[in-house]
């Protein structure tokens, strides 16, 4: 029964988490005010014999106040959200120099393509690994997300990454991992019978380990 | 049936719309129809802008002159419908019958021409799924004289015109009923709600066709 988000491991995760906690506090306070108010009213104004309710039609002043407060609050939340949104998903948010990977979703696998020795994605020397994404730490990476058959959704909880893979579209998803380790990838959009099994792992390496892994894999692909 | 009050809003009620229930009802229902065709036309616009290479030029596959004549027919039927309504407003039963029959015939003719158009197009190889394999049009496409695929073009064309045709057919069926009642003398100068209601529907269907003809055949 935790309201704490699981540990994060990407650069923008803290911004998203901060926004979440801001909203959690605001809505939490609103929740307490309303529910406590309800309970107080229930107790205080419960029917008692011989008493008559006060004949009140309304109060413009009160209504203006409780229209304005929520309105201002949601607009503030909106403005805060807008900035983070633009940084994470905006059209020009992908950092220059991010390492590209091809992530091709299909029922019910993630086919992840890596650049070959020529340093270009989408050329003949690329190699593809099923359900395994290996990336270097502290280095922006960008997934060129595509789908083979139906809509899938690339969900990496620890990185606070989620993006639908839409057949017929290529969508760029960028992030920068901040911790070395293994993290899970899940499919978040119902994609058929095997939806539940459509998981994968992302392994975050140190820069050296990453180069070593890449060389091993490239060699294996050559064989 | 001949109660003159029937052409007015229900008596001793708060004034809402200053029309009788059936007329208000058909206006409301047509609001729903507008949204239905909005969905179809909206989908057409999205698909067409998304995949313009699937569209042939207006005259390449569709027979625009024949459909233009058909459009003219449908407009004529709106005119006869207006005439029918005007006749019964004057209490002229004979003219009402005459114009209702004319509207039914022209409406049915429209559906007939559309059926003929569909048959011809299918015969040439234009299907809701695109070209029929091995058809005349598929050969033209293979020679590069037509778009390589017209799949979504076919899909939009048949869905939009088909649903309009369905509406016209339903209208004709209802009008046959109204005409039958007209021959039995059920409509009077004082109460001719059925004629007015079917007329409103008919003009709506006509209007939709003019929009569809423009965007499907001419653009």
């Amino acid at each position, binding site marked *: 029964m935790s309201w704490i988000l699981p540990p994060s491991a990407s650069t923008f995760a803290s*911004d998203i988490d901060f926004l979440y906690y801001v909203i959690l506090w605001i809505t939490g306070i609103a929740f307490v005010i309303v529910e406590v108010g309800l309970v107080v009213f229930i107790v205080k104004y419960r029917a008692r014999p011989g008493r008559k309710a006060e004949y*009140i039609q309304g109060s413009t002043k009160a209504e203006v106040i409780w229209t304005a407060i929520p309105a201002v609050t949601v*607009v503030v939340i909106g403005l805060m959200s807008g900035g983070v949104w633009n940084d994470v998903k905006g059209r020009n948010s992908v950092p220059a120099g991010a390492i590209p990977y091809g992530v091709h979703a299909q029922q019910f696998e993630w086919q992840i393509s890596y650049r070959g020795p020529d340093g270009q994605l989408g050329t003949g020397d690329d190699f593809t690994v099923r359900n395994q994404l290996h990336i270097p730490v502290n280095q922006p990476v960008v997934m060129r997300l595509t789908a083979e058959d139906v809509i899938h959704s690339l969900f990496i909880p620890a990185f606070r990454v989620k993006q639908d893979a839409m057949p017929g579209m290529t969508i760029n998803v960028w992030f920068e991992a901040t911790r070395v380790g293994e993290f899970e990838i899940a499919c978040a959009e119902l994609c058929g019978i095997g939806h539940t099994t459509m998981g994968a792992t992302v392994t975050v390496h140190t820069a050296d380990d990453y180069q070593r892994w890449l060389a091993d894999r490239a060699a294996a692909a050559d064989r | 049936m001949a109660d003159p*009050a029937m052409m007015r809003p229900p008596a*001793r009620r708060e004034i809402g719309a200053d029309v009788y229930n059936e007329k208000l009802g058909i206006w409301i229902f047509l609001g729903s129809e507008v949204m239905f065709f909005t969905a179809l036309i909206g989908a057409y616009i999205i698909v067409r802008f998304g995949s313009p290479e699937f569209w042939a030029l207006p005259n390449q596959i569709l027979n625009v002159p024949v459909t233009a004549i058909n459009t003219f027919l449908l407009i004529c039927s709106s005119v006869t419908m207006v005439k029918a309504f005007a006749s019964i407003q004057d209490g002229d039963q004979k003219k009402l019958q005459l114009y209702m029959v004319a509207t039914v015939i022209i409406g049915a003719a429209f559906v007939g021409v559309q059926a003929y158009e569909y048959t011809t197009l299918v015969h040439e190889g234009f299907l809701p799924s695109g070209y029929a394999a091995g058809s005349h049009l598929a050969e033209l496409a293979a020679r590069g004289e037509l778009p390589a695929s017209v799949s979504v073009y076919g899909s939009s064309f048949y869905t939009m015109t088909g649903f309009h045709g369905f509406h016209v057919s339903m209208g004709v069926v209802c009008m046959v009923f109204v005409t039958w009642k007209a021959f039995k003398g059920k409509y009077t100068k004082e109460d001719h709600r059925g004629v007015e209601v079917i007329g409103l529907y008919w003009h709506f269907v006509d209007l939709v066709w003019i929009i569809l003809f423009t965007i499907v055949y001419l653009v």
Partner: protein
Amino acid sequence: MATTALPLEKTTHATHEMSFVRKYIFSTDHKIIGIQFLLMSFVFLLFGGLMAMMMRWQLGFPDQPLPAGQLLPETMAPGGFLLPEFYNSLVTMHGTIMVFFAIMPLLVGVFGNFLIPLKIGAPDMAFPRLNMASFWIALTAGILIMAGFFVEGGAAGAGWTSYAPLSASPEWTGVVGGQQLWLVSLAVVGLASILGATNYITTVVNMRAPGMTWFRLPLSIWALFVTAILVLLAIPILSGAAIMLFFDQTIGTHFFDPTDGGQPLMWQHLFWYFGHPEVYILILPAMGFVSDIIANASRKPVFGYHSMVYALISIAFLGWIVWGHHMFMSGMNPTLGMAFMMSTMIIAVPSAIKVFNWMGTMWRGNIMFHVPMLHSVAFVSMFVIGGLSGVFMASPPVDIYFHDTYFIVAHLHYVLFGGSLFAIFGAVTFWYPKMFGKLMNPLLGKIHFWLTFVFYNLTFFPMHNLGVGGHMRRIYDPSQYEFLQPLAPLNTFITVSALLLFAAQIPFAVNFIMSWFNGEEAGENPWNDNGLEWIVPSPAPHGNFAELPIVYRGPYEFSSPLVEEDFLPQTRKLDSDTEPAAASAAE
């Protein structure tokens, strides 16, 4: 009651010598049709609930066979273990059944039919036969959609949202006829809804009794009227989309097929362009009923009646420009996402106004806690949770994490169950006397309320926490993921609560049936309410009003200083009242 006796207009209800079939089966009486919708919806509510129980069992006890699951055929649950394809069908059908065949007919079909003519002082709907057709068409659609379970490949399995291309080809789901039945059924039930909405709007506009001006309409009627407009304009969008998808499946069109020029994202736009107004279709009538009941129980006028009406209307307008917030992760242009975020934030405001106004209504009241009021207070407190949890998803960056997780499942159930269904229980209890002439048993009612309230919260509140843990929705087996394994005990807890919540509905069912036969006689006005429905006998007779009711005031004149009693019926003429113009209008 000093009303001027006026003859009623001619109605078809003049004769009471109708056969049983004409009177109760193919009835054109709005009250009978309302009750027909009520019984139909309860059956579908049961179906939908059973589907939810099966899903919960799979999530809570994945290693144990479903009790009595052996009774299900091999294609659904061999050995009592649910198959993933059957689970997907359950996910899909639970959502669809609950939205289109339980909540929507309960709110709109039942109470729209039952309340509108009674509350506005009309003898029946404007088009009684259309009304009857609407019910039978809806029932046909319900049978069609359930038939999906009995055809090869099983029922539709692409989610209640049926995103293309998953839903567009049997190749992707293994579902063959079920998806097509689903689409046909939605188009058919859409027709029923459109006919119903046409009827409601015409009736409210044209059939109001003399003196029942727009701003004397009860909020329940305002809500139903606004809802009818939303139904009228939103449902045809779904019908159009469903027909296109049906053609994609059957005659080979390519609207949603990305490999041949189609646009899968278009389905989402069409679906949610319908779908967000639909969300308000599912809550606005509930807000209306609750407004009526809270005012009645607090013995006070509704606080800020006019702003309540304007809030309804503004929700109805804003509801059309927020659909994109369902699609933040869909690949839609992120700039568009910003626009949808702002409109979504704004639409929270009228909902907030309504909540505060309900509280204002209770403030300084003299609150009776009859069973309808218990449900209404629960509605307000649960709707608040559902509304506040919506703010998380409305913020696109936070939605990155919460999209398609159990957080959204919790959110939507707080609105649809905590909101709509509590209001429905309240409304059924409140208007039961007028439907059947008997009161529902208050003790059973309270038992049902408290059990439901407790287990409802134990079921759905922890789903927020599942969502915070990242638990995806619509997954068959969360144990596949390591990060979800710590949540397994919570899943089991939710399942147990859900089973108890299901069992807690038994007192309601017993109460509903027993009271029908043995309930206490209700009398005309058991709740001392002001509405027009309470001046006629219970159950309300054919044709409703023996004489034309004339309305002198709004519906919420409780504890008025003008009279001794704490209520003042809309038709009671005080010396200071003048006859409305329409009452004396020429024949």
